[in-house]
């Protein structure tokens, strides 16, 4: 594989990790202060959705 694919490969992985860590962290913080336990799941969904959207914008839509 060429280096552009290698780069895209690791960037996709980084985006997924970043999205989930960011929004799960926010969800955990909200849970901690409001004494609830479901915001972390909402955060997980938002994180996954936003990182998949970013990947779609960056690697899938533009190259068409």
């Amino acid at each position: 594989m060429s280096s552009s694919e290698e780069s895209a490969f690791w960037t996709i992985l980084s985006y997924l990790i970043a999205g989930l860590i960011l929004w799960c962290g926010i969800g955990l913080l909200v849970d901690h202060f409001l004494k609830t336990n479901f915001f972390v799941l909402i955060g997980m969904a938002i994180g996954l959705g936003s990182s998949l959207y970013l990947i779609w914008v960056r690697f899938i839509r533009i190259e068409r």
Partner: protein
Amino acid sequence: MSQPGFEPPGSGDFVFTPIFGNSILATKPVLLLFFSVILISTFFIISSRKAAVVPSKLQFAGESIYGFVRDGIGKDVIGHEFQRFVPFLFTIFTFILTNNLFGIIPLMQFPTMSHIGFPVSITIFVYLVYHYVAIKKHGLGKYLKDMCFMPGIPKPMYVLLAPLEFLTYFAIRPLTLAMRLFGNMFAGHLLLMLFTLGGEYLLGSAWFLKIFSAISFSLAIGLSFFEMGIQCLQAYIFTLLVALYIAGALADEH
């Protein structure tokens, strides 16, 4: 051993006591690190000292490693400004390669990079370099703007995407760079240690288990060669990703 049974190797096997004296600088990984620096500089000084048009075998070996990093990684990835970064990439490649290969050389048998401190310090250096290059070329404001706000998406989505891009560039990328090298070396060393210690333990048990001890030892030897491939590949991938990050920092827009 207080209780009978096999004790599997764990992260405690990666902690070394100082070989001499009481200083933390005299443990095995640090000494291997110093040894690798001496080894690399001696090899390349000797191989390039009597540079001739018709190269000797040593000169050919040195030049082919250099040519691999310069043409295969630097020129292909970074592009027309690659000449400035070749020494940096070359140093990183040879340093990581030598330190990784210590993991399977008999008597040393410890990859230095399986201590997280060493990949992290290399990564901090890389981090400073690629951000410095980008800020010097584009200026801080334009660099951040290009990074966080990519064109062609509806405005409300920036609320979701800008922090994501920022976090990716400033935290996740260097983190994965260090963790990948560390994780591969750590897991590989643990695997080799498991098969070697397992074979040793089986050798001291009942007679019919001694056959399995032979299998375990031969697997350890086979996996050593597999590990050699992984060690070279990790050094290559690390250097390639450093080159990709520098290329991304130099690009007009990504």
